[in-house]
């Protein structure tokens, strides 16, 4: 299956040299002759009517080339709004983003005008001079309050703020609760904040009037969908628009969204006949890039006398922000995920999505799944406490077992197919992590620490992650006449080593020499169809397409070589850049020579009567999701005087099926865990009562730094996914999912002498002090 022995090896990354030498090309590294630079004028109000816009003073600044408002741009577009929401029957309101706001602004940071000038410095000078006459309107800040009948309306033209509602249910929930010996209720508040890729967003656009071709470089996770939208909005054909995602300085979700800037900048470039660049700064990123904010959960769990789950029900209110920028998928992901790792006979969750006067909410790494895991795991901790059982024992009694796999759940994915856990052994994974961390003797350690005046705690969380969102991601593999192997895919790299992953899979079939493989990702000119990077999908979808395409090319190489060398195919092997007789490497032929032979020669037959060309494009179709899974144990120490939490050790038993490159897997998982530490303890995107953001720099919004990281250990299990040939599952989001749940459980455990109950994430030092002093949390 892997003749080159490359799949499964921790080979070094092909991305690294350029990045380490400062030769990578991020969007702001693109300089084009005659290029202008843009700045956006953004709303300072969370909600206001626009009475007038005066651009005269701005336009008069020396160096300013143009100031455009919606009125200038909309006549050149087929639509005024970006209709980008994934389909769902649950919408109650259609609130698509305008290209630029014209009569009403509904969140701080909403773009109203673009200033294009000789430099960014001048553009910003002039942007400050654009005069907009705002009439402030009442603001809906909190998503729970926004659903009240008399709440201020986020959009003055809409009748209410309930943008969507749905339920997720199976089993006889009423009966489950009616006959349950124990019913426990909990309310939770969760908030994830801002994704904060270290590179903000940015767009460069250039229009070539000779070929009538528009090229857009955008720091996007989804160049192919972006191209389709740009084509639709400009009324252009596919051939006339190329979107390229250059090197990305991280994505983590928000860059999968299509933004107003991605149409405004290209249109400005067309109208002005010159390349235009816009680079988001961090301050803008805080107000204009999508986030993942508040969720309020009211939950109840019904259990029998042994702690076995009979049913779970409740409701979820989700902050959607001011517009639909992606869809209902974050709360949908939350709702589907709650019961997955466990045997839950009946389930019902009523979900309401509330508009607020804040920047839209779309997925961030984990996309609703960390919150679901937090809810489930907090409920199980509560069960353990009420019944006087060990937290691990309660889980052991309820986890899905290996002999249930594949385990179909009566829950539907957004495309309508049922969720089925495809493989894994959850109880064994949990046993592994408990053994590794000495769970059984922690009480002794805890008592010794307490005797010395220290508060240490341990927490546990199980989780699954739905990965490999279909339906497909095409990959093209071609052998050039020089014998190099070129791989192209709609998959998009934003730091997850996508190019190395694809090169490894292809090299495995085609000679085993990674140095001979070049990979192009994220360029719509390189391959026609594609989706891009999100939902931990690329190793699964593009990886398997790459494997299929490489196998096809491999077969053809061997057939052609067999004809050209007059040797049986079975006696040949591909080694490096040549095909050679097995064991007799001097007798052979170069890959380039085979490629040239298959280019054909006028009047001659092709070798082996093969079809011309040495390339293959494949798009493996998989609708079911491959579920990664794992079991996490966090150990913490809490300073009860300051409320500071130190995560001292984090151990994760992790199963993502077959690993393509264990080094990359570890990197993805550790990065996710540390993101999860931020979500548990630090990250909070604050707004005041008027929905004015109050955390708009890295002094106010805290990201985890090197001094906060614990000792991290990952225990791998590899349960191959039966859903795809490579047996792989995605890994990009998994580390983040169980981490807040495990850490908060550990903090609560550390504070058990104070009887503290934590029903929220993040929990700050001030929250902890308040909880110790007997306050209740924010839920």
């Amino acid at each position, binding site marked *: 299956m892997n003749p080159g022995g490359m799949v499964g090896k921790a080979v070094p990354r092909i991305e690294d040299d350029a990045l380490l030498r400062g030769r990578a090309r991020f969007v702001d590294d693109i300089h084009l002759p005659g290029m202008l630079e843009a700045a956006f004028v953004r709303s300072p109000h969370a909600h206001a009517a626009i009475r007038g816009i005066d651009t005269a003073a701005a336009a008069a600044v020396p160096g300013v080339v143009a100031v455009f408002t919606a009125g200038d741009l909309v006549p050149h577009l087929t639509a005024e709004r970006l209709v980008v929401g994934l389909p769902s029957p649950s919408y109650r309101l259609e609130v698509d983003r305008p290209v630029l706001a014209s009569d009403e602004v509904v969140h701080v940071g909403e773009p109203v005008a673009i200033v294009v000038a000789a430099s960014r410095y001048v553009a910003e000078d002039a942007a400050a001079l654009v005069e907009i006459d705002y009439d402030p309107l009442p603001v809906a800040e909190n998503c729970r309050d926004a659903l009240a009948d008399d709440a201020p309306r986020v959009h003055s033209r809409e009748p209410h703020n309930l943008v969507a509602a749905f339920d997720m249910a199976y089993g006889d929930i009423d009966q489950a609760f009616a006959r349950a010996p124990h019913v426990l209720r909990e309310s939770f508040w969760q908030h994830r904040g801002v994704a904060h890729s270290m590179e903000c967003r940015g767009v460069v656009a250039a229009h070539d009037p000779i070929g009538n071709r528009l090229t857009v470089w955008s720091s996007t996770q989804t160049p192919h969908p972006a191209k389709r939208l740009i084509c639709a909005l400009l009324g252009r054909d596919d051939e006339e628009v190329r979107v390229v995602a250059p090197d990305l300085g991280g994505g983590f979700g928000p860059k999968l969204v299509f933004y107003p800037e991605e149409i405004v900048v290209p249109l400005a470039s067309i109208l002005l006949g010159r390349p235009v660049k816009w680079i988001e700064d961090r301050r803008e990123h805080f107000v204009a890039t999508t986030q993942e904010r508040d969720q309020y959960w009211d939950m109840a769990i019904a259990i029998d006398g042994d702690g076995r789950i009979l049913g779970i029900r409740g409701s979820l209110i989700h902050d959607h922000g001011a517009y639909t920028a992606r869809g209902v998928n974050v709360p949908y992901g939350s709702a589907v995920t709650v019961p997955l790792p466990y045997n839950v006979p009946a389930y019902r969750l009523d979900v309401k999505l509330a508009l607020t006067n804040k920047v839209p909410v779309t997925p961030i790494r984990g996309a609703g799944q960390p919150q679901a895991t937090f809810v489930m795991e907090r409920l199980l901790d509560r069960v353990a406490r009420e019944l006087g059982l060990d937290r691990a024992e309660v889980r052991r009694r309820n986890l899905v077992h290996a002999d249930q796999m594949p385990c179909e759940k009566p829950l539907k994915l957004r495309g309508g197919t049922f969720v089925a856990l495809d493989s894994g052994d959850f109880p064994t994974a949990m046993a592994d992590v408990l053994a590794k961390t000495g769970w059984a003797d922690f009480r002794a350690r805890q008592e010794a620490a307490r005797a010395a005046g220290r508060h240490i705690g341990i927490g546990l969380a199980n989780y699954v992650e739905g990965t490999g969102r279909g339906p497909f991601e095409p990959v093209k593999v071609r052998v050039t006449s020089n014998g190099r192997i070129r791989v192209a895919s709609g998959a998009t790299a934003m730091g997850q080593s996508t190019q190395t992953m694809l090169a490894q899979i292809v090299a495995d079939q085609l000679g085993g020499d990674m140095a001979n493989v070049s990979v192009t990702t994220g360029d719509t000119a390189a391959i026609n169809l594609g989706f891009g990077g999100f939902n931990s999908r690329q190793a699964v979808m593009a990886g398997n397409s790459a494997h299929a395409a490489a196998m096809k090319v491999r077969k053809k190489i061997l057939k052609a070589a067999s004809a050209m060398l007059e040797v049986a195919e079975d006696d040949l092997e591909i080694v490096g850049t040549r095909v050679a007789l097995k064991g007799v490497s001097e007798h052979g032929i170069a890959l380039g020579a085979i490629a040239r032979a298959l280019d054909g020669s006028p009047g001659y037959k092709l070798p082996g009567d093969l079809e011309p060309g040495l390339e293959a494009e494949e798009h493996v179709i998989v609708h079911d999701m491959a579920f990664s899974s794992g079991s996490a144990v966090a150990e913490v120490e809490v300073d009860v005087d300051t409320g500071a939490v130190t995560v001292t050790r984090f151990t994760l038993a992790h199963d993502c099926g077959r690993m393509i490159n264990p080094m990359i897997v570890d990197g993805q998982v550790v990065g996710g865990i540390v*993101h999860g530490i931020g979500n548990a303890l630090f990250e909070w995107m604050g707004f005041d009562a008027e929905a004015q953001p109050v955390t708009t720099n890295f002094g106010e919004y805290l990201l985890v730094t090197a001094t906060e990281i614990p000792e991290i250990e990952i225990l791998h299990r590899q349960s191959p996914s039966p859903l795809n040939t490579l047996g792989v599952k995605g890994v990009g989001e998994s580390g983040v999912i169980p981490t807040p749940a495990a850490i908060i459980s550990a903090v609560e455990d550390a504070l058990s002498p104070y009887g503290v109950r934590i029903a929220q994430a993040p929990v700050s030092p001030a929250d902890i002090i308040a909880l110790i002093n007997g306050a209740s949390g924010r839920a």
Partner: protein
Amino acid sequence: MQGSERRAISVSVNGSRHDREVEVRLTLADFLRHAVELTGTHVGCEHGVCGACTVLVDGLAVRSCLMLAVQADGREVATIEGLAPGEDALHPLQQAFKDHHGLQCGFCTPGILATLVEYLAENPEPSEAELKVALSGNICRCTGYRDIIAAALDAAARLREARA
């Protein structure tokens, strides 16, 4: 506009001299990236917290988003582009980062390497805890820092060996 008056400066970058007339408000980061066209120095926050823009000025690590180009007049600036000894070899720090997967998207990496060049020159044998403190002003969203610390420890050892 304020700050738009211009002044002539002469800055040495990775050993080559650059004479330019610049607006006095131009940051050193923008000068390096857009005037000198060395785009390996990255800007992640423009307010001095993330460390992505860190470069060496007369051997000291500075945040080039917080320094003006005119303040670099007459000084020596070293950026990521000048770190490797040549086309065939990487600097021990670069090699260690590659070997330990100390970078993912690589956006934070140039600033981290600049920070470490200065730090390891002064502290050739740091402990893990000391390295974490030394790097606490460089934010990385991708790696979770573990592999960065491992790479830095290994690089310190390699640099000591090279010196011995």
